[in-house]
């Protein structure tokens, strides 16, 4: 069986989101099938400017075909178009214009799909909201599998996506909440699909003590891993944490790791460590009392799964239905909507090591039952087997 993974960006330098999800799945599926990746030459997700010079290369044993982006995105113009689209009545043509602006516009990639339709058994498209998925699925509908990685943001309700979600041969969802949202928005119940998600690579050894020594951190700390951005709910996290410190007198510290696009408040107990590599990330998780996930929009949250894989509980934003659902299903973390709930939940977690251990253990069991690579691979293979069976019958 020959599979093509189609994604907006691909490479070792892209270390998050749907792109990393795609790379990991592709690298694991190459054990079971012949795998290629079709992508663009872009690295920057804001402008989609061409970055890679070569049309074809091998990344971790997988052939990657890169197609040029013919027009870089103008973020200001895109913002204006999106605002107009979301706030006013509009036609399908306006939505398609928005999609063109959203990009990454790589007509060469779509032409390649058209020309090589029969060279592959299935095309697995990642991220529903980009140019490559919309036009790609329209080009090869009967061979396409969509991994939407959809969050609860307003563009999911656009008319063009209603049709898109009803077009592919199958859909692989990240969570039960994502499936429900897409089913509701598009009425695509009959399209075959499964909730799969993604596994994660856990290093053989990691040490919280090493991390503490390296960064000179003493005492308990809670950890936030990811982009430090208002869109990720960080402004509220800072506010709630500072109030928690003031009201409780706790000695806990908030350790932040990741790239930053917002001002971090100057507070003696808020420590920003910059971007951490994979190894250090797990050291940081190991040393933490718990992980905090303040994000409002998530389609899965890989870092939450990594925290559970290490037996660490999570304190998540309950206004993100995926995070709340994951906490309830796993029994691996508490959640908050308001500042008093944050204060109480964090207070309960910090004051009870036994509770943290119990939640962490439940989280670990949930991870092992649903998100180890064996399980993920089996789910992908089962879905592909089902499609093959349908095809032959």
């Amino acid at each position: 069986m020959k599979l093509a993974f189609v994604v907006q960006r691909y490479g070792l330098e892209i270390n998050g989101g749907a792109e990393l999800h795609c790379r990991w799945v592709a690298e694991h599926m190459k054990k079971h099938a012949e795998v290629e990746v079709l992508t663009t030459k872009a690295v920057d997700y804001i402008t989609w400017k061409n970055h890679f010079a070569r049309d074809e290369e091998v990344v971790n044993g997988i052939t990657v075909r890169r197609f040029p982006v013919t027009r870089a995105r103008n973020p200001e113009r895109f913002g204006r178009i999106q605002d107009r689209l979301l706030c006013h009545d509009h036609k399908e043509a306006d939505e398609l214009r928005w999609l063109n602006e959203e990009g990454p516009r790589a007509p060469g990639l779509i032409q390649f799909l058209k020309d090589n339709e029969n060279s592959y058994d299935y095309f697995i498209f990642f991220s529903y909201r980009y140019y490559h998925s919309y036009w790609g699925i329209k080009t090869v509908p009967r061979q396409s599998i969509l991994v939407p990685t959809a969050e609860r943001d307003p563009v999911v309700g656009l008319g063009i996506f209603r049709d898109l979600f009803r077009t592919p041969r199958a859909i692989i969802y990240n969570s039960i909440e994502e499936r429900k949202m897409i089913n509701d928005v598009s009425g695509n119940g009959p399209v075959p699909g499964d909730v799969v998600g993604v596994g994660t690579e856990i290093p053989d050894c990691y040490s919280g003590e090493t991390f503490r020594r390296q960064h000179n951190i003493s005492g308990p700390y809670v950890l936030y891993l990811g982009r430090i951005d208002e869109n990720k709910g960080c402004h509220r996290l800072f506010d709630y944490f500072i109030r928690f410190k003031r009201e409780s007198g706790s000695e806990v510290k908030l350790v932040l790791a990741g790239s930053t696009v917002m001002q971090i408040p100057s507070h003696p107990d808020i420590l920003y460590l910059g971007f951490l590599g994979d190894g250090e990330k797990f050291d940081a998780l190991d040393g933490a009392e718990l992980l905090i996930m303040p994000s409002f929009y998530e389609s899965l949250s890989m870092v939450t799964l990594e925290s559970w894989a290490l037996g660490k509980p999570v304190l998540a934003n309950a206004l993100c239905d995926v995070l709340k659902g994951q906490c309830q299903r796993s029994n691996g973390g508490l959640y908050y909507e308001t500042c008093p709930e944050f204060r109480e939940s964090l207070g309960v977690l910090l004051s009870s090591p036994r509770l943290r251990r119990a939640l962490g253990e439940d989280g670990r069991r949930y991870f092992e039952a649903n998100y180890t690579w064996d399980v993920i691979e089996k789910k992908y293979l089962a879905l592909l087997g089902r499609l093959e069976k349908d095809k032959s019958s």
Partner: protein
Amino acid sequence: MGQERIEIDYDHVDVRRIMDQIKEKVAAEAGGKPLASGGEAAPVSEPDFTGGQGRMRRVLLKLTSPFRPLIKLLILPVDEEHRRTVLILDHTNRRLDRLIAEVERDRRLTREYTKLLHHLCHNLVVEMSKLKIEVETLKTKTRVMEKDFEFLGKREKALEKEAFK
């Protein structure tokens, strides 16, 4: 931090149960907090204008007795004014204490209402966002059903035509 404890069954930890208790606790703290303690200020003792009973006082009174009518005549207006002023000040102090207590009570009440309103606004914004998506979903479903209905109508007509040919 609240004083109530969250009960946790460590053998069967249940996130939902813990969260229910946390929500109840937060709601109780936000809504059921007692307001300012006691409306009245501490009582101020009535000034004693009757004078002491010492020997010195008696001697002095005896010595000054021949001049008493003159002294009385001289200090009467001042004494009257002094007594009146002390009474007024005492009354003002009592009123001020009462007013301060009332202001404090109102301030706490307003603070609680502000907190509640803040949460209410926040929750409304969240709910509105969810409802907007829900409306879009329902609109979509309606459109799909309209299309299906239209298609079925056409099919019905075509079948009727075939049947009555």
